[in-house]
């Protein structure tokens, strides 16, 4: 840790949010002389790599300069008046909850830019692609960095436009309806959320998240809290996504280009769960308490539903799409995150945040891998890939196959890898839910959640069995006959994710030490 000046920290955070926006505008302009590169396409893709790289460096610097002795307090705070008429302020800051998410976002976007530099998805001009990617990064980073409800909403919405176009323009089959569905769901969700935010803000007299968290629901009547928690919760649950509001997700993931899927799963879904922890739990605690059992019930349903759907897709002859399968597995994983949040305990929320990050790393990696597989073979259909004996990636492309197996076991929560701790802590939280929550009900949720981990293991191992193993000598259709192994740019884009998955699995203390104090300050008066 290097002690950095407060002003420097402020500048770092604001720059990390604003730079992608400026970069997006710059991407639309013609390249200046000296930066033309080999052609306009290469120049703009390189511009994307440069900007996301710088942003990633800024967030790393921010993490380095972050005072790790007091992660529970807001740091790098800048607070400017923006719209005095409504009391909306340009309030930025980060603490132990948002810092890891900021770094994860910047990292994943950088890796995506790197990946696209080598392998631009099929579609119209790369200029717009890079601009949209950077706009997406700006929106997501802003979501995690802002401390004002109205700004949160703006950042939340900013993400919609670029994601829509990424799916609708550079996506695969069925992209038009999928993109439209994505926009409709999340838009309606966020309009409902806006109403909830307004109810909180107008009744509490402030839109400031820090002050709302400090007040901890004081000054908000029980009814107000119920309405607000319901509205905000529904809006965030669409994004998270929570069963039964998840149905936009499989379509969007399946249709999106690789980079879009990675960012959708790795970053965008986190915005929903982050909102629960940052806004819903601290600002309307009574409302959150009332709805917690329902949230937990939906979360557990999501876990079971997601894994059953995956099992169905993984069966032989089911014509299951691998991308769709991973999308459904996301529904299950986010179920664990929501279950952890619904326990309203430090353990559970820490687990939720941990599972959140782990899902970002692992599912990001899995979507990269499946995207690469689809690039090589032209299909992500499991039956086609598996042939009669199995895909035999171990034999034909050992590194790719090995990495896919690694991603799968990490995703099923193998101890020693990142996925394990979050789910364990979430389930632990359900064993001892917060005071006032029904212990028997949460015990049932715990049991169902544990069953969910078993089902998850079942379908992921089935996928590994069908794709990685098999007879390499089997005669296959022409496109599937040869599968080239990992290429250098893939190696560069995926190694960081693998390393972080292992590190987060072996050394959970590093992250938990950062998150726990912040969670404690967001949930005062809770003992566990």
């Amino acid at each position, binding site marked *: 840790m290097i002690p950095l000046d407060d002003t420097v920290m402020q500048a770092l955070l604001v720059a990390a949010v604003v730079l992608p926006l400026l970069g997006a505008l710059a991407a639309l302009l013609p390249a200046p002389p000296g930066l033309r590169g080999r052609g306009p396409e290469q120049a703009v893709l390189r511009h994307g790599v440069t900007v996301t790289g710088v942003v990633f460096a800024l967030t790393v610097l921010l993490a380095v300069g972050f005072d790790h002795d007091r992660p529970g307090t807001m740091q790098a705070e800048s607070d400017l008046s923006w*719209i005095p*008429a409504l009391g909306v302020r340009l309030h930025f800051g980060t603490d132990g909850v948002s810092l890891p998410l900021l770094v994860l976002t910047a990292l994943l976007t950088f890796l995506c830019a790197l990946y696209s530099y080598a392998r631009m998805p099929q579609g119209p001009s790369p200029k717009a692609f890079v601009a949209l990617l950077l706009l997406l990064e700006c929106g997501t980073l802003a979501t995690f960095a802002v401390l004002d409800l*109205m700004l949160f909403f*703006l950042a939340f919405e900013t993400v919609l436009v670029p994601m829509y*176009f990424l799916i609708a323009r550079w996506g695969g089959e069925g992209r038009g309806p999928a993109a*439209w569905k994505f926009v409709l769901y999340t*838009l*309606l969700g966020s*309009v409902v959320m806006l109403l909830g935010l*307004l109810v909180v803000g107008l009744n509490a007299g402030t839109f400031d998240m820090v002050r709302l968290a400090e007040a901890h629901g004081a000054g908000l009547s029980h009814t107000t809290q119920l309405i607000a928690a319901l509205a905000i919760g529904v809006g965030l649950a669409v994004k998270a996504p929570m069963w039964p509001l998840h149905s936009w997700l499989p379509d969007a993931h399946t249709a999106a280009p690789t980079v879009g899927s990675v960012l959708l799963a790795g970053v965008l879904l986190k915005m929903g769960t982050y909102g629960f922890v940052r806004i819903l739990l601290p600002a309307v605690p009574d409302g959150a308490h009332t709805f917690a059992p329902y949230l937990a019930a939906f979360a557990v349903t999501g876990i079971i539903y997601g894994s059953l759907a995956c099992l169905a897709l993984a069966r032989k002859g089911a014509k299951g799409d691998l991308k769709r399968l991973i999308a459904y597995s996301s529904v299950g994983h986010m179920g664990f995150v929501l279950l952890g949040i619904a326990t309203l305990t430090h353990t559970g929320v820490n687990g939720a945040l941990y599972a959140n990050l782990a899902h970002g790393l692992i599912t990001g990696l899995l979507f990269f891998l499946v995207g690469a597989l689809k690039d090589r073979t032209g299909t992500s259909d499991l039956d086609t890939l598996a042939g009669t004996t199995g895909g035999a990636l171990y034999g034909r492309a050992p590194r790719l196959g090995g990495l896919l197996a690694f991603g799968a076991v990490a995703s099923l929560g193998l101890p020693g890898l990142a996925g394990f701790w979050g789910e364990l802590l979430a389930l632990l939280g359900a064993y001892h839910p917060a005071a006032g929550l029904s212990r028997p009900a949460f015990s049932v949720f715990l049991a169902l959640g544990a069953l969910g981990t078993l089902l998850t293991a079942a379908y992921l191992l089935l996928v590994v069995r069908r794709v990685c193993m098999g007879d390499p000598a089997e005669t296959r259709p022409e496109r599937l006959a040869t599968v080239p192994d990992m290429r250098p740019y893939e190696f560069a884009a995926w190694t960081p994710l693998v390393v972080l998955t292992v590190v987060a699995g072996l050394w959970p203390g590093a992250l938990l030490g950062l998150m726990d104090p912040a969670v404690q300050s967001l949930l005062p008066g809770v003992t566990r």
Partner: protein
Amino acid sequence: MTALTAPQGAHHLAEGAAQRVDLAKGADLVQSIDWAAIAPPTIAAVAALVVLVADLFLAERHKGLLGGLTAAALALAGLALVPLIGDDRATFCLTAGTRACSYVADPFTLTVQFLVLGGAFVTALLSMAPVRQERLPAGEFWFLLLASASGAALLPASRDLATLVVALEVASLPAFALVGLRRGERLSSEAALKFFLSSVAATAVMLLGVSFVYATTGSMHLSTVAQALPGVDSRLHTLAATGVALTLVGFAFKTAAAPFHFWVPDTYVGAPVPVAAYLSVIGKAAGFSGLILVTVRAFPSYADAWGPALAVLAALTMSVGNLGALRQRTDRAHSAVRLLAWSSVGQAGYLLVPIAAAGYTEEPDRAVGATLAYALMYAVVNLGAFAVVAALQRPGSPGRLDDYRGLVRTHPLAAAALAFFLLCLAGLPPGIVGLFAKVTVFQSAVDAGLGWLAVVMALNVVIALVYYLTWTALLFRPATGRQPAAPALPRLSASLTATVALTGVLALAASGAPQLVLRFAGTALF
């Protein structure tokens, strides 16, 4: 007392000051006039006459000058507002008794005048190309525009019922002619007739109401009426209440509030596009400022009656407007303008919300600020949207929404601007100013305890999202092979491009710093 509080610096006032000394000596009956205060509407009116006369002496090929002259006059009238900022002036005051004034230049007046003159200026820019292309009679067109603008600018300053009615008529009578100006076009003259008949009915009703109010209170001045109404003789109570109700109905008509909105879609479609833009913004602004004046300034004692009535009217108006817009099919002729017409009815509903809220709060002056803030936002983005529509409309083209499919390919900047304006109207980021203007209106309803109205408004915003987004999405859709989208459009004319750019820059600036517009919300304007 003469209420002339003008700074002594303005040298053209020297005469007035001398006159005032005379008045102080004795001749009490003659009112003094603060020329600086009344300059904005006066400049527009004088320019109207100049244009009318100049038209007679200009050769056909020089008629284009009249447009420039109009724009310059409107800009000058707008600039005349600058010296008035910061001090409350009043003129045309009674020299005895209550000393009530008929013309007041307070922050409310200046804001609405700025909106009206600015809007008229943009309309003038917008009209230059269509006047030429559609062969509208130039002299008449510019005269009517200036005359109507001067009436609309006079309206917010009026503080007596007679001036109010006169100003409203000066604003709307030329508008009928503007609507019907397209010679030999059936739709145009039918629209003008529809507009005229409904508007005249409204005026008649309003005049009847005004006369009742005058009969019961013995005064035309808003402040005197406000004081006298609570103490009206109990036998005249019904008459006073009827008068209040009829006056409000008249204004509701002018603002195109449901159920008095039926003339809007046909009128907008029949009128030249810039005139439709003018009606949707300046016409509405005039109606709303009149409504604010009579409710908040003249009839505060009837707040428990007009508050709920306006709340219901607001809910009805926004629902009818948005549902009407939702029903528009994209392949119907004129569906673009028709959609904007219905959307303007819906927007009028939002504008009514803070006025209704004013009936419930202790501080009505502050509540109506939200209407002004919203109106300013709406004026900029709606004019912008109309500007793009006007820029892309070719004589003889059907003006369907489907014609905008794939606009981003042929005119990327126009498409981006139109998308931005539509998102502002919808209240979605990146149209930040639209979002926060809606939040302000929403807040006024919540603060006034009108929870149900807030819910209705929220539902309407969601309904409106559908059609605004449908249009926005069309802009970015790839053109289908069946219809060659916007077949080889000629270059956009300079004045239309300038209009789109001007409104676009304004909307962008207001989105970056919404306080520019929202500062009017929550401040006492009178």
